[in-house]
């Protein structure tokens, strides 16, 4: 084997042919930034999505189900107010409105007298919680350290259908909504690698979900295909998402609420309330393509062919379900 052959072999071994990728309609980062985020997502709408408090408030106006807002604290002097917010609650969550990557989220699953119990069983007191809120307000968890708002919401009680599919963490469904049409969906399962977080680049498993049925398609971890959950060994093919139509409808409605043409909706399923929008993302990533085994642009192009503006989210969901 001479040098050139070896070279070509190495290139073929590690790199995909770009023309083949284009043929498959796979969306690249540059293309996403210029032609999708840049064109479809208006800058002025970004705060709606980046600020969880704003998202929640506008979602309630649009009748979109979200984990219930118990209250929020903007200034250090209001810190003691939190007792009012949680007095009727057993479990609750405190999060920074502009936090990223799950930092600064405090989950309390149970209140026993003056003690609050975290998911790992550790008890914390009032003063610990007050210090946490103070840290959030002074920007400890927000990007660039700007002052932030502490948001209180009701604890989501997770449905038991996902038992065994997720390790330690919260499974959620990411739906990429293109011009209001659900285009791609993926379940994100935390692993021991991802340290209980549902971010794919941290090692969470992404399972592509069929838009028609809500059943699992392919699964990936670190951008490479996997068959079973790395921690629980449960075959990922068996995964089926309940309330699938409701989830798609919820995701589709988020478009009308934010006017973002390229949007990622993160949805969790509450045992009692069904699907709830946990957060929105104006820059959804590209790994969802690998999890689904399909190029996003194939679906985007089908949606682009619809010439009229469909304002009924249910009809948009129907379109997606029949075409994808």
């Amino acid at each position: 084997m001479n040098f050139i052959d070896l070279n070509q072999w190495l290139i073929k071994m590690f790199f995909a042919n770009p023309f083949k990728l284009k043929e498959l309609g796979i969306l690249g980062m540059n293309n996403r930034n210029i032609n999708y985020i840049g064109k479809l997502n208006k800058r002025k709408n970004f705060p709606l999505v980046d600020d969880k408090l704003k998202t929640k408030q506008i979602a309630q106006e649009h009748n979109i189900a979200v984990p219930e807002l118990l209250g929020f604290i903007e200034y250090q002097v209001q810190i003691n107010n939190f007792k009012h917010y949680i007095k009727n609650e057993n479990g609750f969550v405190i999060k920074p409105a502009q936090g990223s990557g799950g930092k600064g989220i405090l989950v309390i699953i149970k209140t026993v007298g003056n003690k609050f119990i975290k998911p790992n069983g550790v008890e914390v007191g009032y003063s610990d919680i007050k210090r946490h809120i103070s840290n959030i307000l002074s920007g400890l968890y927000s990007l660039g350290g700007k002052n932030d708002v502490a948001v209180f919401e009701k604890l989501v009680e997770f449905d038991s259908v996902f038992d065994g599919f997720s390790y330690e963490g919260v499974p959620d469904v990411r739906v990429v909504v293109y011009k209001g049409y659900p285009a791609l969906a993926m379940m994100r399962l935390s692993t021991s690698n991802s340290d209980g977080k549902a971010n794919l680049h941290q090692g969470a498993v992404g399972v592509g979900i069929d838009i028609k049925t809500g059943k699992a398609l392919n699964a990936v971890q670190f951008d490479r295909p996997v068959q079973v959950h790395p921690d629980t060994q449960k075959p990922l093919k068996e995964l089926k998402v309940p309330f699938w139509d409701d989830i798609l409808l919820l995701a589709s409605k988020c478009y009308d609420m934010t006017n973002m043409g390229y949007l990622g909706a993160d949805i969790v399923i509450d045992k009692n309330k069904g699907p709830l929008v946990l957060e929105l993302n104006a820059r959804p990533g590209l790994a969802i393509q690998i999890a689904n085994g399909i190029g996003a642009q194939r679906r985007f192009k089908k949606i682009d062919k619809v010439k009229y503006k469909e304002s009924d989210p249910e009809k948009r969901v129907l379109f997606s379900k029949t075409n994808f």
Partner: protein
Amino acid sequence: MKSKNNIIIFSFLLILAALSLMTYKIKYLNFPLFQDETVNIWNIEAKITFNARKEQSASISMTLPSKQDGLMIINEESSSANFGYSNSFINGLKKGNWTKREVQGEQVLYYSIDVIKDPFFKAEQKDEIDEEIFRKEVSTAFVQASTSLLNSIYEKSANGVSFTSLLIKEFNLKEPSQATTMIKNNFMKTNKQKRDTLVQLIDKMGYKVRTIGALYLKDRQRNIELTPMLEVFYKDKWHLFDINKGEISKNSNIFIWQRGSQYLLDAEGVRNSDVRFSVTKNIVPARSAALSKDVKNQNTLLDFSLFVLPNEAQNTFKLLLLVPLGALVVVIMRVFIGIKTSGTFMPILLSMAFIETQLLPGILMFILVVTIGLIVRSYLSYLNLLLVARISAVLIVVVGIMAFVAILSQKLGLQYATSITFFPIIILAWTIERMSIIWEEDGPKEVLLQGSGSLLVSILAFFAMTNSVLSFITFNFPEVLLAVLGVIILLGRYSGYRLSELYRFKSMVD
């Protein structure tokens, strides 16, 4: 689509503008494209010698050359110990005047000029120096001999120029006629006499003529006199003649020092004054020649260039102008390759630090500082400090580490000891802060990935910025920045795949 076309046109216009400016500077201002291009500078030195007279003040004035087409005087210098020096203009003639009250013994004055050839240089036409030819009383023998000679040449010629050519040719014949020989033997004993006689003869025929003292630009000429020449006016133009060679059509090799027959040297209060010339060729880098030229030229383009800045500011700009190159490297690495760096332009600042510290010591110091910084920072995160306080703490730690490293390397006898101060400490502190956040959020693997990505990009940027060809071009042709801008704008519209994505999506085509 329309905006895309606009952007392409816009960036091509930028690139085109840069290229045409460059071409203009190379072609018409003789800017060199590469560092090692050289040109010849001719140094012409006049050496005036004289002896002092007792108790008399000395006043010496010498006719200085005026501007000449095709040759540009880029530097004039007069060196004369303890003599007062001034310039004066008399009847459009430039003169240099040396004066001193008390002079003793033999004295030497120097006056030197640097000349370069520039075919595009045109001397502005000043008032023509018309010369009164002093008509000497001559013997009847000379008149007779010359009359027959002049008449025969006049018959054969058409105008002043051809007449002069034929006349000079006549006197240079190997076997001249009797009349010619007579004039030659009696009135042309020296070259100077020959020239003066020729001027007399041409003037006699009614042609406009003037005397010239010039120098041939040939290397290593020492202790020479001005070569006597003459100029004849015909059809709005003066034509130059060498009295031995005839008409000179291309005079870029001849430097005219003196026009007209007034004395070259005018000395009062001294004895034995004389002036001798020497011509030397110097080879200099083309850029410095081009630069000293436009000081004279007052070219508006260059009048507004970086070279008008003081030297210190120029050196700063030498470095600043390289930053866009670093930015270009960053854009290419991120848009085409998809390398992750911590902080968009941190690699550029890092590579600027590397320029000062040298590459290898710089990399080692960077790794050392960041590693120690991360260790300290991991302790700080236990303290749960607020952001500003935390970064300030890291900042202080960074300064401490830098001092420690400097002292340590000094003790170990390493020469790079103090160059560590060139690292931008604020940037280092932020890098440490950002990396420790990445460590907490995404794990050590991501820190390593982004850290080595930043290092790789900054090493590449370092090579781009220290490349002598590139830095030479950016400083001499700052308009290249427009081209870089155009390229970056074009790259900003690249919506194709990154190399890293070809790897990432590999599993999808299998």
